């Protein structure tokens, strides 16, 4: 019975819904890693140490990829921040046997940490490789644990975690807006990475709202999506870096 109620209610909600998305202007990005640390701080992402980082066990939710082009002296390096793309057609979602990862009505690719049993199937299925697995118990030697954000759970060993578009911030803004009886404004929700980005390369907003800043940028002719040919329909839109015009 409950299921039937849910299904029709979901339909109703689908009609005029937000789709949270991010625009990343590669022309502005300087590869400064501010977003990486901001994410670690906001989301209680553990630090694994040198030994484990060498073994491929590090756990960044956002990483700056650096590409080399050409050879010395005509060498060029470019940066590209890669985080969970919150795909509309997410390859990770159908393969999870316990619904630990699923799509929310607001277009987030959600990860419910305490539902995850750690099959890592989603990680293997993800073409962007943005899912981080808790290879060990997280270690926050006292008093570093006092920094932990109480709005985000501390994940156990053996589960997958990943960028949530700082869902705790979205939720907080939505609750506050509801409490004061107003709509969420464009730009009010800022994930930690967007908030910190010194050159303002990251823009966050509702892609379904044609007026939002993110949505306007996503229609730029510089816009492209990462691995678009896979048909994953990412909610992260990149804006191509400018060409050297000298």
């Amino acid at each position, binding site marked *: 019975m409950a299921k039937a109620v*849910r299904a029709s*209610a979901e339909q109703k*909600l689908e009609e005029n819904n937000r789709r949270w998305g991010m625009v990343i202007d590669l022309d502005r990005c300087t590869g400064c890693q501010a977003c990486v640390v901001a994410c670690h701080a906001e989301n209680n992402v553990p630090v694994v140490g040198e030994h484990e980082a060498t073994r491929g066990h590090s756990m960044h939710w956002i990483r700056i990829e650096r590409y080399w082009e050409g050879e010395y002296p005509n060498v060029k390096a470019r940066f590209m921040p890669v985080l969970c793309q919150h795909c509309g057609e997410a390859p990770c979602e159908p393969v999870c046997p316990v619904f630990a990862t*699923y799509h929310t009505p607001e277009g987030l690719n959600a990860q419910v*940490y305490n*539902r995850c049993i750690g099959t890592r199937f989603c990680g293997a299925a993800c073409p962007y490789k943005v899912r981080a697995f808790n290879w060990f118990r997280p270690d926050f030697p006292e008093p570093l644990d006092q920094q932990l954000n109480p*709005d*985000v759970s501390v994940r156990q060993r053996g589960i997958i975690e990943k960028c949530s578009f700082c869902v705790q911030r979205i*939720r907080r803004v939505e609750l506050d807006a509801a*409490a004061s009886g107003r709509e969420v404004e464009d730009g009010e929700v800022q994930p930690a990475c967007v908030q910190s980005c010194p050159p303002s390369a990251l823009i966050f907003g509702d892609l379904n709202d044609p007026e939002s800043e993110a949505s306007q940028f996503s229609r730029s002719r510089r816009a492209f999506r990462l691995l678009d040919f896979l048909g994953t329909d990412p909610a992260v839109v990149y804006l191509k870096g400018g060409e050297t015009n000298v």
Partner: protein
Amino acid sequence: MDQDRNRKVRTLILWPFLIIAILLIVVVAIFLSRQIATAAPVQPIAFKHKVHAEAEVSCLFCHPNAPRSDIAGIPSVARCVGCHQTIAADNSDVKLVLDYWERNEPIPWQSVNNMPDFVFFSHQPHLGAGVSCETCHGNVGEMVVAKPDVSMDMGWCLDCHLDQPMENVARLTDCLACHK
């Protein structure tokens, strides 16, 4: 042959007993775990909700943050003393409170209702939606020492969330509504 049959008969009788015993253990275990989950913790001072409720002190007088914050809030020592400097100041429990005040020490109250780390819960939207305190905390006014009224598990949360107006159900049953 006869012996064989006897033995068979005996095992046939034994089996149901064994199954019943196992079932019994499971039921008792479930019951006990519920009991533990809803047991009242030992408090540093035997605070009597009943007495205060009978004195017409409203919930929000001592837990004033419930309508505006995640946490309802435990009253500060200052708030206790505000009344008890004059009221019932000779009561032995109240004296304990005043002792804490004198020593400028917080009272180490034990939390009665706990949410696990992976749950996001805020009082504010619940009170905003008109849920009364008693709905979840039971009739605290009748309790001498506060204890959990129900085992707050996910099914219990869902029972109520599913019972909401249709247009809200999808939002309220989204995993991320409560999980963080």
